């Protein structure tokens, strides 16, 4: 019987080994498919080193323990005529195999402690960035720079639904990456607006939970320009798998120009909030905003889904203030309908509301202006 089973094992393991061994060696784009990336910062390399050290300690111990075990299984089997000994106690042995592992642990704990102390030193940073998790995207705010923006998954729905071929950075791409300067200590202040998220970039070895109501700190220092991709690591609801992180490190000069641009753009947006738009302008922009921010729940044609139908909705065709309220402050009953107070600009809010009130068969004729939104927001 044993022969048959071992033949079975051999037979089954051949294709498996072939499959895996190909991969153990494989590296895609310089990244190992089987191991942790070494990353691009001194902390990530420390961690990689720790990881490998401990891994080899475990392999070593494993070889000894399993070695003795397999030796006994092969040599001390009844079928080979082995006679059982009768020893069953040895205080000496017990002491040895308590003390030796303990010493090994101390050898492991020492470098781990050193790395941890280093990881926790967030002092003296050059750039501070507040990272806020939202269901299901990130907001980046450059502290005291007047620049902030949202960063959302940019993988098209068709790729996710298998209706289009998947790109290389499938699920790991965003509309606006976080830009950081090289050769600067960047401090991340991580928090959340709703549930717990976790901001993780493997190449930087930064993983920090975003806790609503609390700020966690972390830092990084990147030497060479590059793009680093990560994900939200803490289960945060339906689209937890669809809120990637992309960090782009660029030379300081480039970073500064970009920052100045963004600041100017923000100024312009503020001005826009005072501008009066035509109905058609609002509808065009509203359609875009709707597709990006609302269609996932309310359906491409306003037919509803997770959210209620917009077509013929009593709120979207009724009193304007009710409509403003649910979009700006969210639903009191169902948290899935989040407050868009912060995540949509005044212009976008005005546009999307105008759109909802005049699309999918709704026809109130209202053209809501950004200034109305601003007033509503200030009113409560």
């Amino acid at each position, binding site marked *: 019987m044993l022969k048959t089973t071992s033949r079975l094992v051999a037979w089954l393991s051949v294709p*498996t080994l072939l499959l895996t061994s190909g*991969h153990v060696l494989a590296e895609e784009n310089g990244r190992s498919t089987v191991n942790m990336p070494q990353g691009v910062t001194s902390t990530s390399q420390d961690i990689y080193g720790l990881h490998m050290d401990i891994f080899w300690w475990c392999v070593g111990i494993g070889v000894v323990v399993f070695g003795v075990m397999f030796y006994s299984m092969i040599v001390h089997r009844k079928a080979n005529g082995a006679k059982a000994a009768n020893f069953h106690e040895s205080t000496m042995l017990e002491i040895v195999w308590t003390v030796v592992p303990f010493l090994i642990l101390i050898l492991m704990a020492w470098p781990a402690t050193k790395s*941890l102390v280093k990881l926790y030193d967030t002092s003296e940073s050059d750039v501070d960035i507040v990272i806020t998790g939202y269901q299901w995207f990130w907001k980046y705010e450059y502290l005291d720079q007047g620049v902030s923006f949202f960063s959302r998954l940019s993988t098209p729905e068709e790729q996710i639904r298998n209706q289009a071929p998947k790109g290389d950075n499938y*699920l790991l791409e965003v509309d606006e990456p976080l830009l950081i300067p090289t050769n600067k200590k960047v401090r991340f202040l991580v928090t959340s607006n709703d549930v717990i998220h976790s901001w993780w970039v493997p190449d930087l070895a930064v993983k920090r939970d975003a806790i609503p109501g609390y700020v966690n700190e972390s830092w990084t220092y990147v030497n060479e320009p590059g793009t680093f991709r990560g994900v939200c690591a803490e289960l945060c609801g*339906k689209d937890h798998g*669809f809120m990637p992180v992309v960090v782009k490190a660029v030379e300081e000069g480039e970073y500064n120009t970009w920052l100045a641009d963004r600041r100017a753009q923000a100024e312009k947006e503020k001005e826009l909030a005072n501008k009066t738009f035509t109905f058609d302008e609002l509808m065009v922009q509203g359609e875009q905003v709707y597709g990006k921010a609302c269609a996932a729940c309310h359906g491409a044609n306003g037919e509803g889904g*997770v959210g209620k139908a917009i077509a013929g909705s009593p709120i979207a065709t009724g009193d304007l203030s009710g409509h403003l309220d649910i979009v700006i402050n969210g639903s009191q009953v169902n948290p899935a309908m989040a407050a868009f107070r912060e995540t949509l600009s005044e212009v976008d809010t005005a546009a999307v509301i105008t759109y909802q009130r005049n699309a999918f068969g709704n026809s109130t004729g209202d053209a809501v202006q950004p200034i109305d939104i601003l007033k509503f927001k200030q009113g409560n």
Partner: protein
Amino acid sequence: MAHGPAKGFTRWLYTTNHKDIGSMYLWFSFAMFLLGGVFALVIRAELFEPGLQIVEPGFFNQMTTMHGLVMVFGAVMPAFVGLANWMIPMMVGAPDMALPRMNNWSFWILPFAFAMMVATLFMEGGGPNFGWTFYAPLSTTYAPPSVTFFIFAVHIMGASSIMGSINIIATILNMRAPGMTLMKMPLFVWTWLITAYLLIAVMPVLAGVVTMMLMDIHFGTSFFDAAGGGDPVLFQHVFWFFGHPEVYIMILPAFGIVSAIIPTFARKPLFGYSSMVYATASIAFLSFIVWAHHMFTVGMPIAGELFFMYATMLIAVPTGVKVFNWVTTMFRGAMTFETPMLFSIAFVILFTIGGFSGLMLAIAPADFQYHDTYFVVAHFHYVLVPGAIFSITAGVYYWLPKWCGNMYNETMGKTQFWMAFIGLNLTFFPMHFVGLAGMQRRVPDYNQFFADFNMISSCGAFLFGAAQIMLLYNVISTIRGGKKATDEVWENPEGLEWTVASPAPYHTFSTPPAVK
């Protein structure tokens, strides 16, 4: 006192017999294992390749959550309680459990609790979708309405566990036959005694934390809401104060089972009995002071981080003592490799591998990279599947002839072992790789970079599932007939359970046996 079982199905509804109740626990747990396994297969099918194909993300989260909950609370824990019910009275020479009616109550709560839990899947807004760890505020403010039913299911399930463990403690401490001193008890009894203490200490804390959730959801309290002065991380501390000991609850009885089986098939007494007892007690003690190793990334102060890292690493020492003792028991034995032994040997090897990855996770800075990836998923399946599940399977094969009087089919047993062994490693080993390479847990979709290993995992899962169907078949056919087993079943096994007839009579030890 009636001498045999009652007739008809009321035998099962009204029974006070530890063997009947043990059987019901075991069958219930197996049913839950299949159900949890089906959820796992849904997960694996969705993850077979990148892209969304079978289920929607929201439903996927419900599957992950229910899989974890059902496996932990529905499959593993009741299986161990079932084994305890069957074996502890026989092992200590008692006529039954100490409190037989309460025993039946502990069991019958479970089907109700799980019916309620599983029913949430059909409620408006869907079932629990926040992971088996149900972190607030995803499980409070942002939870579907069915969470209330989930909370109460946890409450009554906890009540069942507490009553079950009180019963076990009372049985072990009060019902031993004369001469059965504590240090003569089989290790399975010892590990269960310690497990029962763990349960009594932490199940109420779980009840406490779900009660806090309930209050936050329905009565406006601010335990987990910073706006009112609370803290979402408080939830995690309380949960893991329960949760970490919980994982040892799922492994200590396994240690006991393996410590019974290995000596039998090595034909050599267990090496280092007393150090095994002390090691178990140390593990239990340490399990209370390591909980925050699940929370290295929540932003604890560095002192806390270091404390929990060191304490966690320490657990490797007593666990190592156990492993070394098992290996030394095999050393210079006269080994044979019947199915229970195969499962036990696989247990020792694969559990140790899972322990090694646990130790890697314990290194706080490195955990910043591992946390919430498939590396963690690989770790805990290595300690749970070849750990808890294999030990239970080993125990079932080992004691089944005693329970029903028939020998199981050895060829089928061995075939099942190899299928399970291969399936399991195919499923869970590649998870180490995808985890290290950066795939986070609890996602329905992933980049192509991880595709190949995920495909292997999914295939392995189905193979492993098939092995379980074979186990079911083998057990049923053994119960229905087969070669008669001798009273001793194996060659010179140790323990009182082998001194009674096979199948064990409905009432054993109505008068206590003499223990040398």
